[in-house]
């Protein structure tokens, strides 16, 4: 089983997931195993087939550009679940470095 075929550290970085060394080993093996099952798809001829993103015919949906307070959250409601807020905003750790 090709457990080393997936660079699990790279994938975890893309997914913004911190993994322990144990998790890297476990998920690496499990993903390798699953991808071997998934490889069976290569046997299916899809050369002339369009991709399906939605099975039910759909079209772009637009609506009138008007205020609908009944389906809008107040600022208070929008912030009620926030881990940290300041003067009506979400507060996060510093993104831009202190220098420059």
């Amino acid at each position, binding site marked *: 089983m090709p457990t080393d075929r997936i660079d699990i550290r790279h*994938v975890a970085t893309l997914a913004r997931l911190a993994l322990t060394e144990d998790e890297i080993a476990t998920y690496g093996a499990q993903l390798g195993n699953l991808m071997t099952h998934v490889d069976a798809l290569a046997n299916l001829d899809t050369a002339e087939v369009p991709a399906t993103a939605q*099975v039910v015919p*759909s079209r772009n949906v637009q609506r009138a550009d008007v205020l609908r307070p009944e389906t809008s959250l107040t600022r208070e409601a929008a912030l009620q*679940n926030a881990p940290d807020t300041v003067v009506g905003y979400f507060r996060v*750790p510093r993104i831009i470095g202190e220098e420059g």
Partner: protein
Amino acid sequence: MDPIKDTAVSIARAVNAKEAAAAEIAEALIPHVSRVDAQLGAYLQLTPELMREHARRVDERVRAGETLPLAGVPVAIKDNMCLTGTRTTAGSKILEHFVAPYTATAVQRLLAAGALPIGKTNLDEFAMGSSCENSALGVTRNPYDLDRVPGGSSGGSAAAVGGFEATLSLGSDTGGSIREPAAFCNIVGFKPTYGRVSRYGLIAFASSLDQIGPFARTVEDAALTYDVIGGHDPLDATSVDRPLEPTAHALREDLRGVRVGIVKEFGLGQLDANVRACYEAAYADLEKLGAELVEVELPTAEYGLATYYLVAPAECSSNLARFDGVRYGLRVDGADVGEMYEKTRAAGFGPEVKRRILIGTYALSSGYYDAYYLKAQKARTKIAEDFARAFARCDVIASPAASTPAFGFNAKSDPVSMYLMDYYTIPVSLAGLPSLSVPCGAVVPEGGTRPMPLGLQLATPLFTERSLLGIAHAYERATRHAEKLSPVEIAAA
């Protein structure tokens, strides 16, 4: 009228006729549910005050002359659907303390129709799983054998209805999350056509597959619920804008003229002998009711699982990117914002959710997109085309809902063996078809002591809910399998 055992149809009839008050129903249910649920664990949260408040409103409306389709009917809601003011957790630590600031459309329609909310039910974390064992917040037991799982991901909603802790409940189905637990819990579980029920207020897992649907103890109750929650909703851009045909008053009693497709590739050969005998008997019963059995082919169905385990995790990895510790949910501090994201998600998500995020991220990552995600979307087209060809020869496709009855806790330690539980339901989901599971018998599983229910999966072409429910109703009325089993007696505390 018995508010615990009766159907939604008879409860609503009694309340509308003023023979029973919604307030009495609420007062009967509240102590009953808290007693039974100490054993079953179907609920993550009970909402007795909300239930009483809705009961008062229903009684007022009925007194004022209104007739409500679900007047006084006790309902349970899967905890991935928002209900204003209640905790809505998706079974995850990352949302353990999240309080919904708005209500999902399906829930709002249910309550506007007179239903009484008992509480929010347990689920596999973010609806990812087939046993409810992936919940980070509680254990739910099968009402027919407490040592077995209720199925999943909507395991709490199925156990609540199967264990007579609710008359109806809402679940969501992405690859089988309504149909498999319905089969395990001796009830009807119905997944409408993709887009038929609004997903507004449903915490997203795989947006091109997720669909809300009802659990009930009869097909007629499931149809009644669907008629209430279905239909276009401008708040969900994928909600289908076409008229909803009412189904509850169009149920049939026989199957004369119905062609039932039996899928060649879904041969019953690999099933346990007793399970196989049960499905053979079910097919024979369909024939006795006047249906004609025809063999149909779904040559690409064998690729269903591989297709699903690319499409669903890919969409999951994208949807769950929103859980970053900024606007809601858990936050674990870090030296900078990137470290905060990584630590928050590491602490907040359970193993199955992490696995699927990793699979999806990998399948969408640069250099692999064409080989995996795009290939899976093409396979999905072929699967949908297979079904369309099969439906030229039949009106409905019948198959097992799952290959075994409910299994014991910790029985599926390998993720792929758990994924295989959805072998029959996944191709139907990929094609977006309306589908349900209806009880079709029971077997005593190896190592078990009690007969455990099995479900017959029925699926019909897109937007033919009325035909599907009609066929299921005829089968249910003729066979009455659900009535032959009783849940485990729960002793008084």
